[in-house]
């Protein structure tokens, strides 16, 4: 049984636990042993990207062994006495290492904070623990959630990137080291790495999930969301972590009640961002994305092509993140700890410092353009259930490729014009989106689409993803790691 357990979904594990066919202690041991065998590299974490991994994934910065087993024993006792807290009860999870966990070091992916041990839990960890979850691992991430460079290797091919910044979380979920994880996204850090490994990763609406005791990167852009092996699981997890929190004033007083039945897709209007589909240049990949759209069409969805107006999306994003990042990390410059930042992040460090010098009027102009983008996007989106676009036109690039900014540059049209990307617009507009796998490229790397919905309508996004996953099995394909002879 142990050989299959680590790849079961939360929904499947939950059924086994509730019917007492599976012990939370046994399950936790399976994950811990798998992580100890497959994940720990021959160098300490956090670290600069390394060449010699000894064929280990390096997706976990801190494995919370003893505490996890103790939590599992408590869960087992509760479930045994008939007290079942919900679908996450007794199931081990990991969180990106920017979410505080009481007594467990939380490094923000940086050696500057390698010994930082919080004295309280983040809101998300509080909620997951209250739901009976078992915190098992603090997942690797790009230092200070920036740059697409992370130590975590891609389990589909170890020489491929898992991007960033939530790379450890997506790798851990897809490689079966944790049952699910929590990532964070400022401009694409859940959905983009999820696409490199074929994970189901959900970016909720801005304000849906409390960021209390979470490392900030941009106060007005940061979101926290689930990464899992199915869309259903993302919904179950989101329900557990969503909700108003007075300690995070960005959170809204709105309830999210997840419905695992996607209902009928027939008649739902899906906007297709055709320019991004047309920008896919490899014929094989084009065929994969076309086939994915055909699945929705067969279910009766109604398609309509849409375009977004030409706006300086990239400049707005860069300005907001540089200015806010500069303000957030100012103390590190003051006391010179910034000197310890990893080499791959040095240009970002300089961008933050430049951000502290920039005029406030330009920051406000960026936020005014953003408001315009929000208004336009809401008006367009209100006509549709969701909009769909490739998350990335290609499978994961080689790991040794030059370091990219957190948001890959948008594809260019033949005339040299930049194509607006749904991912950038959705992040600026605070809209929910889910990444789901829809096939593989010619080199057997996952290809994925992002389904973006209206604000506060995660259910519709999940409906489309769940319906797609009922019709296909791409999300059930498992990476060949560890490779067998």
């Amino acid at each position: 049984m142990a050989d299959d357990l680590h790849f079961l979904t939360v929904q499947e594990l939950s059924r086994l636990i509730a019917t007492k066919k599976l012990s939370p202690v046994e399950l936790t041991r399976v994950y811990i042993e798998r992580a100890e065998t497959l994940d720990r590299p021959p160098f300490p974490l956090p670290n600069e990207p390394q060449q010699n991994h000894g064929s280990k994934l390096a997706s976990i910065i801190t494995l919370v062994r003893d505490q996890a087993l103790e939590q599992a024993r408590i869960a087992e006792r509760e479930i045994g006495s008939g007290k079942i807290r919900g679908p996450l009860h007794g199931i081990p999870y990991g969180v990106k290492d920017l979410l505080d966990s009481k007594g467990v070091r939380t490094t923000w992916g940086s050696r500057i904070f390698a010994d930082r041990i919080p004295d309280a839990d983040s809101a998300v960890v509080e909620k997951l623990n209250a739901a009976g979850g078992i915190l098992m691992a603090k997942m690797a991430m790009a230092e200070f959630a920036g740059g697409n460079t992370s130590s975590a290797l891609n389990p589909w091919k170890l020489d491929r990137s898992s991007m960033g910044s939530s790379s450890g979380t997506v790798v851990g979920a897809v490689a079966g080291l944790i049952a699910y994880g929590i990532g964070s996204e400022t401009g694409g850090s859940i959905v983009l790495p999820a696409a490199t490994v074929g994970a189901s990763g959900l970016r909720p609406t801005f304000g849906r999930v409390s960021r209390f005791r979470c490392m900030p990167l941009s106060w007005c852009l940061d979101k926290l969301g689930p990464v899992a092996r199915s869309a259903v699981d993302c919904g179950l997890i989101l329900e557990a972590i969503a909700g108003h929190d007075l300690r995070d004033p960005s959170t809204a007083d709105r309830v999210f009640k997840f419905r695992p039945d996607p209902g009928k897709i027939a008649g739902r209007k899906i906007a297709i961002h055709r320019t991004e589909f047309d920008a896919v240049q490899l014929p094989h990949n084009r065929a994969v994305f076309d086939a994915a759209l055909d699945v929705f069409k067969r279910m009766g969805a109604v398609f309509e092509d849409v375009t977004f107006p030409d706006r300086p999306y990239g400049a707005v994003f860069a300005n907001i993140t540089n200015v806010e990042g500069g303000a957030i990390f100012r103390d590190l410059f003051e006391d010179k700890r910034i000197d310890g930042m990893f080499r791959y992040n040095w240009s970002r460090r300089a961008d933050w410092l430049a951000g502290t010098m920039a005029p406030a009027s330009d920051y406000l102009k960026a936020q005014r353009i953003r408001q315009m983008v929000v208004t336009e996007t809401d008006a367009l989106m209100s006509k549709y259930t969701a909009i769909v676009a490739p998350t990335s036109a290609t499978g994961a690039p080689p790991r040794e490729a030059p370091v990219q900014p957190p948001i890959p540059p948008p594809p260019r049209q033949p005339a040299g014009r930049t194509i607006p990307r749904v991912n950038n617009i959705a992040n600026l507009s605070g809209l929910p989106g889910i990444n789901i796998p829809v096939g593989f490229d010619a080199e057997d790397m996952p290809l994925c689409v992002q389904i973006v919905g209206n604000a506060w309508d995660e259910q519709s996004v999940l409906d489309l993803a769940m319906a797609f996953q009922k019709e296909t099995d791409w999300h059930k394909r498992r990476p060949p790691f560890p490779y067998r002879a």
Partner: protein
Amino acid sequence: MDSSRREFWMTIGAAAAVPLVWREAEAQLEQTGEVSAETVRILLDLQGSRGIYENPERFEELRAAVARIIRSHQTLRSFQVPSDVPPALVFRRG
């Protein structure tokens, strides 16, 4: 910018001087395609201690970053927004 001008900016005080020096940096980028090292050095000094940017290699990274952010400002400033569009910042009482 010579050292006497640099001293002049320093005597004005950081709060007042930064916007003026920043404007000078913008003008330099417009005219020469780069921001002079001296101007970036003054901006840096006005921020406080130079820290790691005493290192010439690190300093060049900062010089490039200042140019990047000014270019992004040029993009933002050239984009017209109706005057009744407020910034996407909301102060809300609970």
